[in-house]
């Protein structure tokens, strides 16, 4: 079924390619050339059109080159670019016209997308990082979120899994502000959405609003930062067709390595202190020709990692163009990623049509439609697959020599399940429509109405098969069956309606520029979930009706959310030197009771373009310097429950429905689970930011610096309450957290000779997180893995706590000198420092570090020589702690695997061992300084080498540009951690590993 789908999608693409190939362009005279600026830098995206015939035109590519066919020999070409002086050059039969454009001091640089509008970058007073399409597509990745990593200071992405479709990562802007949902607000062309619903190829620009001044126009939702994504639109008189693809192969990285069977048995005997495995059995392994069915030595986790092809591919095709009345941009992108594990795949097709219609001189209409169809598949019990094999010891057999399957860990066989245990498919079909009308009432005064809808149909099919195994090997004919032929179908329908009305007014009075924005918006979300289950499904059938009726169960639920907002913004600038902005927003959220519902969020910011002052005008090396300062308040209404999912009715005391059997049949039951708290209100973040933007050394070096303080109060949090209350903790406005930090971005570009261009980009940021107040409920808690984390005033959120290890008990004197952690403690165990009398407890635990990364940095290197280009991107974290106990502890029974480090564990014969005594107790696997380690790393995320075919060659094929490239991702990592722990996603083999990717791709523009 999956196969058929991908065939269909590929078919669609091949039709597209075919359409391109028949689009023939009649040739006349062809003009080409390179457009550069005063510093001999290529001008990218400069527009070249034939005067009097605006439909004939093109834009320059990344190297400033252009090619324009079918030009009348006596025509005049008009070259234009934002911030540059427009020039007209007569062709006069020339086929090469190179041009140096001069900057226009009156019009400056790029335009950046801000909340409900755009602003010139030089006029910004808030902290905003903007990324363009080039930056985003330079790192081939299936998920747009992943491409953000290391690209902008203050923005961190952490990925816990490399599983196709789930490898989206978590985005944090300026640290962790709250103890609940820290996800930034993502707006795609003004509509709330998920960043990974958009293909990187469709994005024109992405703005990351980091401070209050920039994001407070989004009020209650903006405390975690805002990401604005703008998709590509058609341009007047520029017909553009482009196609790009890449093909890649992934390799797992950071997969745990284990010791083989012989060492396993030796260490297991040490663990139990008794011979679980006899000497004879261990000795049998000395014989390489032993009977492998009887004396197996397996590495099943490794076997699993080889079952998938790891192949991935991406194809993008786009058409855009238009005239002064109607513009369009149509694109289709197909992405497919096959896992390094069999049947763990992801496919996504996105189609987008953006149209702009000038209905009349005063009325403009945008209608954008998009669809994103995706299908993620995984084998049955995928959540447990990797973990299950990671603890399957090397004596576990997956397949015997006769091909029959073995039973692993006494219950089924994950490798067989991955192959034939079932199909779990998670489909999501998202459709969005975005309709915007802009009416110009008078010069500078416009009214905008916007309606956006977003429908996501999620259909999951979770099918498992019963698997039968021989009870023993060699078989005695008896079999055991695990599992059932069962099927769950889930249907979830998500709807979002977004209605906005805006009034904009812009006016210039002499040296005074003012802009006013007023608006109102209503957002409504709803989700309906339905689920059905049956078992007894005959092989090959895939629908509920195929199962037995008496096994049927079902379930369903729904939620709704509403947000009403009023907002306004005032911008003022004097002579382009003194900039001021004020925002205010009033939000009402359905998450809170009527009386606590509404919040007002103001912000103010100012900028001073000091380089425009006469006293600095003549400082030659200083091209631009702007000082910025802002203050503002932001809100957050998102509440999460103790299991981390969003809740929608947090203030209401709910009696949830259940059942319980009496007399053999179920009766309904209803109960209170969560402690009631009706006094909830939004949480507030107050942020102060100062910074500067500078361009120096004749425009070769850009510097951006920001320092900020972010105080979040009334944090919405399920602060644990005593278990004796008997109810789950409610969400409360419970805590205060402070983040302060700074961000620095440097970008240097230059050239050597005429053919060698290079640039170096560097960004570094730090954020210091600190819990400021918890209403006296400071607490440490220990999870199932004995990892203790604390919510303690003065320390980062959820920082690591544990015992301080003084060493190991090495002598009898040690055993009497130091208190023992538990009854079974003896020589070779860890000594924990005791701080207070009594049994070991929280009072003996000390702060051991935090998993919130500090000093995160990114380095971008790029160089090009003639047709060859090269880029490298490194990313790293300077300071972070991870608790490795789950990754490095030894098993306490035979259900587990030993690692290399366990060979050097304490015994009487090895008293200076690096690892404590092996035992079946968990006294050494407590939260302690022994396990909290530095997770600092530097990783070569991406290297790319490209080659652009010479114009002389491609022009004969009617191609404007053709570039090939090869890319490698995650190739090198520098860290002090063992090489089977991935520093970016340290995990205990719970998740699909991170991957190294090698890709090959091509970009073609017609």
């Amino acid at each position, binding site marked *: 079924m999956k196969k058929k789908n991908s065939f269909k999608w590929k078919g669609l693409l091949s039709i597209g390619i075919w359409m391109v190939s028949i689009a023939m362009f009649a040739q006349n005279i062809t003009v080409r050339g390179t457009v550069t600026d005063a510093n001999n830098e290529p001008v990218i995206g400069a527009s070249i059109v034939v005067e009097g015939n605006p439909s004939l035109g093109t834009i320059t590519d990344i190297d400033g080159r252009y090619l324009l066919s079918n030009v009348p020999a006596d025509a005049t070409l008009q070259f234009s670019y934002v911030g540059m002086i427009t020039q007209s050059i007569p062709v006069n039969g020339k086929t090469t016209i190179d041009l140096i454009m001069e900057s226009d001091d009156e019009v400056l640089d790029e335009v950046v997308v801000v909340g409900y509008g755009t602003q010139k970058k030089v006029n910004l007073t808030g902290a905003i990082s903007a990324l363009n399409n080039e930056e985003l597509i330079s790192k081939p990745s299936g998920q747009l979120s992943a491409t953000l990593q290391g690209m902008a200071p203050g923005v961190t992405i952490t990925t816990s899994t490399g599983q196709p479709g789930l490898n989206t990562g978590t985005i944090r802007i300026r640290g962790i502000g709250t103890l609940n949902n820290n996800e930034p607000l993502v707006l795609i062309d003004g509509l709330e959405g998920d960043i990974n619903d958009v293909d990187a190829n469709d994005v024109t620009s992405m703005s990351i609003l980091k401070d209050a001044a920039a994001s407070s126009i989004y009020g209650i939702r903006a405390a975690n930062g805002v990401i604005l994504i703008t998709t590509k639109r058609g341009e007047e008189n520029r017909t553009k067709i482009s196609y790009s693809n890449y093909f890649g192969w992934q390799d797992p990285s950071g997969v745990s390595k284990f010791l083989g069977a012989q060492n396993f048995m030796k260490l297991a005997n040490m663990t139990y202190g008794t011979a679980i495995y006899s000497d004879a059995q261990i000795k049998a392994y000395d014989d390489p020709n032993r009977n492998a069915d009887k004396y197996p030595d397996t590495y099943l986790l490794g076997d699993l990692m080889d079952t998938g092809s790891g192949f991935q591919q991406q194809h993008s095709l786009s058409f855009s163009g238009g005239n002064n009345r109607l513009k369009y941009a149509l694109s289709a992108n197909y992405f497919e990623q096959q896992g390094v594990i069999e049947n763990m795949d992801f496919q996504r097709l996105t189609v987008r049509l953006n149209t702009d219609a000038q209905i009349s001189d005063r009325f403009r209409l945008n209608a954008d439609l998009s669809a994103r169809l995706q299908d993620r598949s995984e084998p049955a019990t995928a959540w447990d697959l990797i973990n299950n094999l990671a603890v399957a010891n090397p004596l576990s057999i997956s397949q015997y020599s006769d091909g029959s399957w073995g039973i692993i860990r006494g219950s089924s066989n994950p490798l067989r399940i991955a192959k034939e245990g079932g199909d779990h498919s998670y489909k999501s079909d998202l459709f969005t429509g975005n309709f915007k009308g802009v009416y110009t009432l008078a010069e500078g005064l416009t009214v905008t109405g916007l309606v956006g809808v977003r429908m996501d149909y999620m259909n999951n099919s979770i099918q498992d098969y019963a698997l039968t195994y021989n009870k023993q090997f060699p078989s005695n004919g008896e079999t055991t069956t695990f599992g059932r032929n069962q099927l769950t179908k889930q249907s979830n329908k998500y709807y979002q309606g977004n209605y906005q009305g805006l009034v904009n007014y812009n006016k210039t009075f002499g040296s005074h520029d003012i802009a006013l924005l007023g608006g109102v918006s209503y957002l409504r979300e709803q989700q309906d979930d339905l689920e059905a289950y049956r078992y007894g499904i005959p092989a090959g059938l895939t629908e509920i009706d195929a199962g037995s009726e008496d096994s049927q169960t079902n379930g369903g639920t729904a939620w709704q959310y509403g947000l009403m907002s009023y907002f306004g913004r005032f911008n003022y600038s004097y002579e382009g030197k003194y900039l001021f902005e004020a925002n205010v927003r009033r939000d009402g959220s359905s998450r809170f009771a009527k009386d606590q519902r509404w919040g007002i969020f103001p912000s103010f910011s100012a900028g001073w373009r000091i380089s425009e002052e006469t006293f600095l005008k003549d400082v030659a090396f200083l091209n631009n310097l702007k000082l910025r300062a802002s203050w503002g308040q932001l809100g957050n209404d998102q509440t999460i429950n103790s299991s981390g999912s969003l809740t929608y009715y947090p203030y*209401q005391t709910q009696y949830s429905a259940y*059942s*319980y059997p009496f007399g053999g049949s179920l009766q309904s039951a209803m109960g209170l689970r969560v402690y009631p708290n009706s006094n909830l209100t939004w949480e507030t973040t107050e942020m102060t930011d100062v910074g500067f933007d500078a361009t120096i050394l004749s425009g070769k070096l850009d510097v951006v610096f920001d320092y900020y303080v972010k105080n979040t109060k009334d944090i919405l949090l399920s602060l644990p309450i005593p*278990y004796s209350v008997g109810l789950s903790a409610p969400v409360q406005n419970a805590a205060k957290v402070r983040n302060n930090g700074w961000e620095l971005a440097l970008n240097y570009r230059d050239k050597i000779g005429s053919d060698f261009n290079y640039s170096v980009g560097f960004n570094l940021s730090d954020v210091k997180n600190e819990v400021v107040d918890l209403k006296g409920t400071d607490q440490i808690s220990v999870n199932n893995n004995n990892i203790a984390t604390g919510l303690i005033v003065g320390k980062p959120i959820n920082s690591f706590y544990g015992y301080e290890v003084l060493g190991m008990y090495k002598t009898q004197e040690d055993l009497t000198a130091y208190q023992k952690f538990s009854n079974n403690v003896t020589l070779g165990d860890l000594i924990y420092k005791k701080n207070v009398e009594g049994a070991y407890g929280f009072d003996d635990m000390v702060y051991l570090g935090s998993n919130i990364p500090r000093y995160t940095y990114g380095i971008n290197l790029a160089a090009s020589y003639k047709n060859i280009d090269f880029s490298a991107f490194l990313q790293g974290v300077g300071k972070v702690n991870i608790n490795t106990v789950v990754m490095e502890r030894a098993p306490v029974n035979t259900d587990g695997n030993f690692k290399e480090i366990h060979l050097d564990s304490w015994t009487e014969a090895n008293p200076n061992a690096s690892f404590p005594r092996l035992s079946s107790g968990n006294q050494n696997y407590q939260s302690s300084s022994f396990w909290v380690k530095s997770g600092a790393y530097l990783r070569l995320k991406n290297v790319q080498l490209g080659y652009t075919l010479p114009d002389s060659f491609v022009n004969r094929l009617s191609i404007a540009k053709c570039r090939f490239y090869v890319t490698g991702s995650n190739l090198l990592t520098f860290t002090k951690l063992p090489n089977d722990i991935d520093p970016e996603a340290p995990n205990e083999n719970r998740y699909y590993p991170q991957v190294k990717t090698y890709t090959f791709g091509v970009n073609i523009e017609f």
Partner: protein
Amino acid sequence: MKKIVYFLLLSFLILTSCELDFQPKDSLVDTTYWTSEEDVKKAVNYAYRRLGNTDLQAFISCATDDSYSWSNWPSDIQYAGNGSATTSTGVFLNTWDHYYKMIASCNDVLDNIDKVTLSEDMKNRYSAEMRVLRAYAYIQLTGFFGDVPLIKHIQTIEEFKAPRTEKSEIIDFIISELDEVTKNNHLPAEYSDGEYGRVTHGAALGLLARAALYGEKWDTAIEASKKVISSEEYDIDADYLSLFNGTNKKSNEIMLAAQYIKGTYTNPMATWIGGPSLTGWGQVVPLKGLLDAYECTDGKTIEQSNLYDPQNPTANRDPRLALTIVLPGSSVNGITIDITNLNSPDRLGASNASFSGYYYRKYIPTDIEGSWDSNSYNDIVLLRYAEVLLTYAEAVVESGGSIDNSVLEAINKVRGRNGVGMPAVTTTDRAALREIIRRERHVEFPLEDNRIFDIRRWKIAEKVMNGTAYGILNNFDNSRADYGRYVKVEDRSFNVSRDYLWPIPLNEIGLNENLLPNNPGW
């Protein structure tokens, strides 16, 4: 074009009147709950959901000399068994959390029932059901932890950090609650078929007897158990195993059980206790300590009986041994389980196989369907008539009162069960009877609620929970170093000054410092 402007302005107006009041659509909110009898009944039913918790029940047996758990999952019980537990060992918090949840569910009904108009009888009945379940939870909590917070209503935020109440005061509370409920006949002797499983008058009396016995209030225990016996509502069932395998859920012997139904309301019992052949995980397996407690068929202990064969230790034993434990080569639900067959998946050392060489038969439902899923549907028995009989006998013996025939009758009724048929006890010697009753409780109730509390109140834990725990006699695998000897399972230690009570869990102390000091030694 003017129209468009009007349209846009109009849309502003529409926006100002948008909906922000949403209510949950799959649950009721307190503003509308507590209006009808149906609301009360549903909330009462909700509290019953806490009766069964197979992640704790059965596993608790591994904290006694009966059983061993090889896995530290789901609840670290292994460490509570071998003495290496600390205040952060999972089973302590899981137990604490579970019973306080049960108490909160009961308290919620008791706090709100007066808001609803319903007949006095029904109000009394529903309240009594909740008071009995709450009392049961406190019996468990005081047994495990000693002094604990006594919480009688849903706490206000100011009351969150509740201090501990003395165990004796809680026992008095339990007894007065159960006494009041039973004295006033708030509960029916039995329910209609469709309501089977609710707390009955007899169950309340039985729990009263248990609480009094645990609290050493012998007269109360005698009085309550006598009332049960004389009511003639209950009897010893003719089929011991049927009480636990799902085939005899409404037996006259069962007084209170957590209810389950095949397919729709199930538990993972068979997964925990079954061996690999039964697709179980062998997480709770019997130890030699339990096997040795069964008398020989002549009614004598293995130390005294001539019928005991050290080379074939399971021969000639109390039939309950073979009913409770799978002996090598016997079959369960038609599947042969023979750990002495060195190719068997149940053999020693095989994955998920028993470390002791034995598996439990008791509590395996008769037709489990494979898979690790929760597919068991047998009820978890919490109180049965056999216990009331032995409670009566023990209370009389311990009270110092005269030992009449009714004591022997009570003991012999349990021993003489059809299919068990152990020789009748005739001695009236107080000390001898004490031993007999204790042994009888040991072999009658494995995997049920009682053993951990028994070894604590009899102060024998320091003896039975110390030293090496053994499994089966290895007379079948000469490649093992222990050939000819009993298989060693683990070394256990018991700290007399500490281990008679579990600690208040570390995470709870972190949230409520008023619980300090912790129990002695912790």
